[in-house]
């Protein structure tokens, strides 16, 4: 009798425990949780989500290792932090069908950028899906993998403010958007130098004019936006000062990559005049959206809006040009 009671107590306690855990497990499994892990441990699990236009998609997320965060590419949203052992939630609304990329915004190793997943959004949109349009560099016929050494270099940092004082001398075509995107500063300077009407200006003054022309497409707001994007997405490899000496630079200097065996090279040094002044903005734009084949440079096309990419390009010029409109000299 007593023995029976004892057995019942033991079994009952065990049963309650197991059933309690099972109930908790079941309640949770139904929620469908998005797990964030270091890319070498699987990245996003699951990596492909589905949604329907007009129906809000709520995602509950947790991290299994370190701090991550969630954002959808080209979407105007605040990135949501995902902390280990905690639960984060985000609700997304899609008004257009298509394939969206979601990604981690907090660096979690040299492979951080590989933490990307897709959201397949189906249903009828308010607008038609965007027609495929080849990227700018292809439309312009630029080979963004070609070497682009600047043939001419300034002797001092070109200043847009100084250039502004000579504004009236600058032929109008140099300030057009079309001219800007397709010319490297070095070639722009060369054309200015070859312009007979400007032969009285010194080499340095012409560089200032080029800086002025470039500044027309790099307004302070764009530079600021670009600086923010650079800090969050680029500085880990290219360095906080743009010198190419970011914390992961050494890892990329190794010849092959751990995850997929692709070769990598050291990140570009944006303070390198010869490299930068020889690059047309469209080339930089192309590199950002497509990535650098065989260099370890990620592709940001699905992540950044066109506006953001141009803002980044504007910011990159600040490593070569002084866009400040206050004259320091």
């Amino acid at each position: 009798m007593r023995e029976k009671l004892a057995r019942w107590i033991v079994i009952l306690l065990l049963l309650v425990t197991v059933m309690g855990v099972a109930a908790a497990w079941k309640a949770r499994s139904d929620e469908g949780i998005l797990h964030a892990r270091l890319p070498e441990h699987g990245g996003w699990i699951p990596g492909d989500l589905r949604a329907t236009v007009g129906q809000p998609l709520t995602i509950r997320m947790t991290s299994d290792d370190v701090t991550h965060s969630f954002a959808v590419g080209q979407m105007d949203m605040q990135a949501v932090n995902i902390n280990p052992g905690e639960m984060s939630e985000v609700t997304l609304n899609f008004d257009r069908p298509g394939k969206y990329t979601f990604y981690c915004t907090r660096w979690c190793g040299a492979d951080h950028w590989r933490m990307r997943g897709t959201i397949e959004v189906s249903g009828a949109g308010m607008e038609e899906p965007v027609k495929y349009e080849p990227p700018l560099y292809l439309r312009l016929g630029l080979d963004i993998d070609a070497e682009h050494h600047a043939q001419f270099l300034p002797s001092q940092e070109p200043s847009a403010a100084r250039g502004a004082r000579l504004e009236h001398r600058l032929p109008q075509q140099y300030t057009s958007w079309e001219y800007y995107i397709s010319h490297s500063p070095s070639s722009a300077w060369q054309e200015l130098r070859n312009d007979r009407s400007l032969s009285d200006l010194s080499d340095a003054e012409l560089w200032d004019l080029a800086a002025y022309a470039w500044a027309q497409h790099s307004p302070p707001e764009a530079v600021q936006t670009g600086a923010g994007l650079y800090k969050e997405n680029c500085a880990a490899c290219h360095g906080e000062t743009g010198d190419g000496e970011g914390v992961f630079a050494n890892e990329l200097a190794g010849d092959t990559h751990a995850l997929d065996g692709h070769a990598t090279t050291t990140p570009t040094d944006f303070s390198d005049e010869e490299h930068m002044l020889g690059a047309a903005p469209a080339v930089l734009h192309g590199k950002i959206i497509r990535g650098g084949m065989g260099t370890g440079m990620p592709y940001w096309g699905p992540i950044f809006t066109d506006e953001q990419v141009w803002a980044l390009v504007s910011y990159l010029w600040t490593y070569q040009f002084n866009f400040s409109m206050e004259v320091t000299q």
Partner: protein
Amino acid sequence: MFAPGESRLNLARLRVLDKLIKSRWPLLLARSITLAGFVFTILVGLLGSPVGSHNFAIIFVWIAWWTALKLFFIPLGGRSWCSVCPLPMPGEWLQNGSLLTKAQKSIGLGMRWPRRLRGNWLASGLFLLIGIFSALTLTDARLTAWILLGLLGTAMLLSLIFERRAFCSYVCPIGGFTGIYAKTAPLEVRVIDSDICKSHAEKTCYTHCPWGVYPLAMRDSSQCGLCMECLRVCTYDNISLNLRPFGSDLGQTNSITRLDETLLALVMLSSALSFSAVFIGPWGWLKSAAYDVGSTAWWAYTGAYLALSLLVLPGLYTLAVWWSQKTGQAKAPFKRLLADYSQALLPLGLFTWIAFTIDFAFPKFSYVLQVLSDPFGWGWNLVGTSGVSLPSALLGAAPVLQVGAVVVGLFWSANLSQRLVAKQVQPARARRAILPLAGFSLLFSLTMLLLLLG
């Protein structure tokens, strides 16, 4: 209530306690609860968040339970944890065919434990094994769950093959050190009047003891699991549960040489040093080495840990004993001295582990509150403590407490060495013969202080 001439208080004579002790229900209930908790811990370890600091299994086993064991159960109650430990319960149920009484028929082979494997050798080995994988064990909830499951399975298996609690007595890595440190604790089960026992032919106490201990022959508390079964079955009510002075089992010269206890005591010392270096020290490369199981660095760490445990500390200790024997011209055989003098390593080790645990666990107590609210690490907040963090000002007292613990353990150890040496050598030579042993303890304590505070 006090036995004449002895500073012992028989708790079984206190009316309330007597009822609680003599009934099998309180401990049975306690163990049912710990068994359920154990199963819960395993399940959460397997199903919960892989993030250790948010998983109940990691926090409750390695922070809460470990701290309770080191700061409460062992120093105050010796093997008192063993009395509520759920590990042997399922196997014993099968073995005895009953939870409350020893049934006549039972499953299991009931073999005797092999003589060669007696003592703490296996327990020392298993503790070293856990130590080798400590960085992984302490942080990986899945592994912790598998280890707990493995211990439970081993205990069950051994119950079916061997008689009594073979697992607890000879295998359990926790039971091993709990047993040797139990000698320092102020709690014991002892025979009241030995003459009654001598004339008692049935020896019901022995036949009922799950640990296979004959109370009359008990020389210390290391093998007594405080299950109180002997108190319940003694025909003459001749067994007491005593509150006794700390360290009552220590300082005697033993008739048997127990080098297994010496080794275990040394393994516990080396593990305290190694764990302090890995978990408390600022050396990140050491943490990575201990964590990256299988890597070259990990092999180097393993080699160093094993060398420290099996060569360096035993070597230094042997040297100290040898030197002491030489200067004191002790007559006893060297092996006997090695075993006897190692008793002084017990208070040293126990208090070193207390100091380590203070530094290791105190800053992580907020995790305990957090996993109470969110055992699985699924972002729950059951009792509203998931976001709680304890004020870091509390930690200010920790270093002082650690120094206190190390100093008390060292005083105790040195004093014990002195008493042990006094039994072996002439008084005129005693002081000099203590020096090597006291020197060993001092050197160890200084190293530990350097790791904790340096």
